[in-house]
């Protein structure tokens, strides 16, 4: 199955979901959908009753003898039935929406959890995920709210109606039943043509979303190089692409509706002829004939509605398949496979041991990290130096548990990182991300006990006090990336404030904390860091002397291997990694 999906993907088309995924999707919504199906059946019964009442009324009118009371009774009955239909209509809408909402929330929650895990390992595209989980999951609504209940109704309602028609006139039921049985076959034949086009459409929509997100990032650059118009044309072209693909799908999809209508007309005509012959032969079956003729078109309505909703839900099915791929990509080795006892956490700073850690990245022939053996004592601060691309960031991410190493293992306090960590570590990345929420939320990240005073204290300690004061709404100011973007230095300080707001970490991982800052700011930041880190263990990756000063030991990485280690202060400020005189 995965192979088929991958093959479909490489052909530029999105695969479509299978029934187990749909079943899992609606698991949460079953009660409401069952209620909706019951409502649908009830509506069918009401239809039968209405046909009975009307046929009796009209037959009485035809044969004469229509009394006022009979008319009143009939009108009242029709009115009551209408009320029932109205109630049923409201219940259908309410319950299908309820079920769809629950299925949507559950799916989104699961999908975002998976996407965040993948993003932590650096393996997913935020733009594509946002399109998939945002707009794509919205497309699941027609699938859950309409297709699923209508599939059941498309089987149940014609059966119900056929039973009643058979009770009235068996041969008509046979003729109508034949037409009804043919319709899914024909609709299916037509629908099969559209499958490929549907996949193509979803794939192009996902591409549009991902490309657009990337373009927002790089738009100033494109304008600067005068290439924005090219991309404008490309966006317009891919929009046209989506349009043409969708229209092609629709043409065929609507055609299936047309086919069903014609089939319904043919079926009704056959039944009418048959009944006409019987009437002509003198049989007094007018009420029954009328009822049968009223109900025969209704046999085809559920299937027609299902086909039109089926095509509307096609994007939803493709979304489901993409979510399935997301789930497959998220599959990480089960924690039980890795031996490790949780142990009782000891107080004090954490010690880190790396044994033979390697990391290979697909698409690169050399491994990013190759056989790293490193032992960091509790409370020790080391600095990773090396040229850019030597693997410093990757090493930090392995220690943080965000990326599993391809070989070897990383232990914190004797426990393998992959079994999970019980507490947070201090993590200051090179490019911290600002969430679209208030400053308080960005600092607190929802940790219990972090209130406004602690958040402002953390910001003060991270040298953002003045910045906070300059904000109009203080801690409640919403930060949105494009509106008032924070400079890189401010973002780093925000990341540090995040770490300060909670329980003080016992292990800090800092990736280039002072890169991009001028000398004064980096000095101050480094001093502040020195104070806040205190006696905790710290691994700092940096080129900058002001940050390197923080560490007692230096470890040099070159092409993924450790090539030197030494004490910063024993030599007279001469760097091991760099030849003398260069600084």
């Amino acid at each position: 199955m995965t192979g088929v999906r991958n093959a479909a993907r490489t052909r530029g088309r999105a695969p479509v979901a299978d029934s187990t995924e749909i079943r899992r999707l609606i698991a949460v919504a079953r009660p409401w959908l069952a209620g909706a199906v019951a409502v649908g059946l009830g509506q069918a019964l009401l239809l039968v009753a209405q046909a009975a009442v009307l046929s009796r009324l009209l037959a009485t009118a035809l044969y004469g003898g229509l009394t006022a009371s009979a008319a009143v009774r009939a009108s009242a009955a029709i009115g009551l039935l209408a009320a029932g239909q109205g109630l049923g209509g409201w219940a259908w809408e309410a319950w299908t929406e309820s079920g769809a909402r629950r299925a949507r929330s559950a799916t989104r929650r699961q999908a975002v959890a998976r996407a965040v895990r993948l993003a932590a390992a650096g393996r997913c595209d935020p733009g594509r995920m946002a399109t998939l989980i945002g707009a794509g999951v919205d497309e699941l609504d027609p699938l859950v709210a309409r297709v699923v209940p209508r599939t059941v109704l498309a089987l149940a309602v014609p059966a119900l109606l056929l039973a009643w028609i058979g009770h009235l006139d068996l041969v008509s039921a046979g003729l109508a039943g034949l037409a009804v049985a043919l319709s899914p076959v024909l609709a299916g034949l037509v629908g099969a043509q559209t499958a490929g086009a549907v996949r193509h459409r979803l794939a192009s929509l996902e591409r549009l979303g991902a490309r657009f997100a990337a373009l927002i990032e790089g738009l100033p650059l494109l304008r600067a190089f005068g290439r924005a118009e090219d991309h404008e044309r490309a966006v317009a072209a891919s929009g046209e692409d989506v349009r043409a693909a969708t229209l092609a799908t629709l043409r065929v999809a609507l055609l299936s509706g047309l086919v069903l209508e014609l089939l319904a007309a043919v079926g009704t005509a056959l039944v009418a002829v048959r009944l006409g012959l019987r009437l002509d032969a003198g049989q007094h079956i007018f009420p029954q004939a009328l009822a049968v003729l009223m109900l025969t078109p209704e046999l085809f309505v559920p299937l027609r509605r299902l086909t039109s909703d089926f095509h509307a839900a096609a994007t939803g099915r493709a979304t489901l398949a993409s979510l399935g791929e997301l789930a497959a990509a998220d599959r990480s080795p089960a924690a039980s496979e890795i031996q490790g006892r949780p142990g009782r956490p000891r107080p004090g700073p954490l010690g880190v041991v790396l044994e033979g850690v390697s990391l290979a990245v697909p698409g690169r022939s050399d491994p990013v990290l190759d056989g790293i053996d490193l032992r960091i004592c509790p409370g020790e601060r080391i600095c990773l130096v090396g040229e850019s691309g030597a693997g410093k960031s990757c090493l930090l991410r392995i220690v943080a548990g965000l990326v599993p190493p391809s070989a070897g293992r990383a232990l914190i306090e004797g426990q393998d990182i992959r079994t999970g960590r019980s507490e947070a570590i201090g993590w200051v990345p090179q490019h911290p991300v600002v969430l679209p929420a208030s400053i308080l939320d960005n600092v607190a990240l929802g940790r219990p006990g972090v209130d406004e005073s602690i958040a402002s204290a953390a910001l003060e300690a991270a040298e953002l006090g003045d910045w906070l004061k300059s904000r109009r709404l203080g801690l409640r100011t919403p930060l949105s990336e494009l509106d008032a973007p924070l400079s890189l230095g401010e973002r780093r300080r925000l990341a540090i404030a995040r770490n300060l707001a909670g329980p003080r970490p016992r292990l800090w991982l800092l990736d280039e904390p002072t890169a991009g800052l001028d000398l004064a700011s980096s000095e101050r930041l480094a001093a502040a860091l020195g104070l806040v880190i205190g006696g905790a263990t710290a691994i700092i990756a940096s080129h900058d002397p002001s940050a390197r000063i923080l560490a007692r030991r230096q470890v040099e990485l070159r092409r993924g291997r450790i090539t030197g280690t030494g004490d910063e202060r024993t030599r007279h400020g001469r760097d091991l990694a760099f030849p003398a005189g260069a600084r």
Partner: protein
Amino acid sequence: MSGRRLPALDHGEPKRVLAAAGLSAAGEIAAIGLLATGAWLLFAASLRPPILLLSMAIGAVQLFSFLRGAARYGGKLASHDLGLSFQARSRAWLYRRLERLLPAGLPGGNQGDLLARLISDTEEAQDLVVRAAVPVLAAGAAWCAAVITAGLLLPSAGWVILISGVLGTAGVALAVIIGGRKSAALPAARGAVCAWILGAVASGEELSAMRAEDWALNRLAECERALGAGTRAVAAAAGIARAAAALAGGGGLAAVAYVGASAIRAGRIGPVEFGVLVFLALGAAAVLQGLPDAVSRLPAHRAGAERLSDLARMQDSAPETAGNRRPAGPGPLPASVRAGAAGRGGAGPAVALRRAAITGDSSRSGRSGSGGRPDAGQRLLISDLDLELRPGHPVALAGPSGTGKTTVLYALLRFVDLTAGELIVDGTDARAMPPEQIRALLAWSPEQPALFPASLRANLRVGAPAATDEQIAGLLADLRLGTWLEQLDRGLDTVLAPWAHPVSGGELQRLSVARALLADRPVLLLDEPTSHLDPPTADAVLAAVLERASNRSLLWVTHRQDELAQFPAVCSLPPGRGPCSGVLPDRLGRSVLHGYPRELYPGRNPQLAEDLPQMEGDRVHADVLSAGDFLIAQPARHQLADRSLGVGQARPADVRPPMSRPVPPPHPCLAQPPPDPG
């Protein structure tokens, strides 16, 4: 089509809408006709009418049933086509609009919200036509046909159907209006959900490291609740509308039955007409049942279209030259520039800022300046700046974070407008030229480079579509990316994206510099190109750039002191303390700061011999020129010592400049750090 307005119905569009509505209406009317004729056939057959009439009726039934199917098909296709082309055009329009608005920023906007506008709001706006307008028009036409036919047979029945239709429509409209406010919040709620998902996935690393995933998911659930309120309101409106429509339709049917029955008893009509009337009432009821689907989401559609129009109303960042539509491609250089280049031996134009002032928001820092309209809360970021870039004379730009270095670059790139002063390109005022022509002279590497999810080759060729693979490989080798390139499996075809192939910060910066160098434009603007690089690589990059740009103008933004030393001209931006002049090349070719107001240097003038680094044997106390926040340590490089003021050799030693301000102790309510073992 004006660039600003939402591409709503333009010239040919109303006709297309009417055509689609006409087709659908024909289909619905055919359905009514089918019902009526079928009913007549049914009832009249038992009365043995003339054969001609019977066969005409049978023919009419066949015609109507075919027409119903075909016209509905055609109408749906036409309306969907309309909606889709509107959607495609509005997406393209959205992109063009964003070009104008970024990097001025969108108030209250963010990436996820924009994405939602692109994907979902365009669909909502499209539904205005497809789901709402066309079906309503068609239903109206069909209902009129039913009313007229019934009225012809029995006036009171016609009135009954009319009234029931009016009541039904009123009920539906009421239901939609009542739920309107909450449904109208639907697109915005969707945008919030999309924004949160984007933010959470983008910050996945930090959330995982800080164990905040659950909080992010709970936040998502909150946003979803808001979205759920919107969908619940839509469903409630649809449900009540359905109930109203069913009641009205059924009521109409019941009333027609009653009225018809009394008419039969009064002898005004026969049973055949009665049958036809009943079926007409059924048909009208069916038409009414179709209304809720069409209009229940109307407020949401309108809100979606409104969100798109919001973008139309926002101010552009830098006003493009009035009137003219942008030319395709960069366009030829203006004559004066070419002449100037010829005058200097073809070396390229000079770009200069004269007494420039740029306004920025005081609460903002870094990127955005909003040029031209100082509001409350905005102050002059830069005032009275003189900066000149000439070929062969590289200039460095230095200053603390937040002083507006990037804003200066934005002003040169014409992303923001100057509040005062002028930008002169080779003697011509920049405002006389379309911005594209100025940008055609500039090659820019931003502070936070962006990579597109395309191949490496495509990324590097953004500014130079004709660059060859050899040129690219040679350039990358110069920037110390040669081995990196070699060990990529697919070489220049590798797709660069964090999820496909991660690139480290330093590699990213160098790729951005390569992109700018490759573009082969007369002026290079590099914003902190070495901030993530280790010193040897940074030196190599600087040397490569200086060599390759020796006949071009170069503006290099940096914090690094040793780099500043290599530039003959340095422009520094103090944090808003007053005017600052750029630096013109020093007669001795020294790396020296000019133009600081004297009072910022109590007693320290770098040009006086006594303020030079004090020498104490092997150790050098770095001398500081303190300007409040702005520290410059004279790097103890022997190279500098050579071209310094004759002080002698300085050797690398403990260079540790003192702090200008003491660091405050951490706040008592913060958790205490583990004690320093010493």
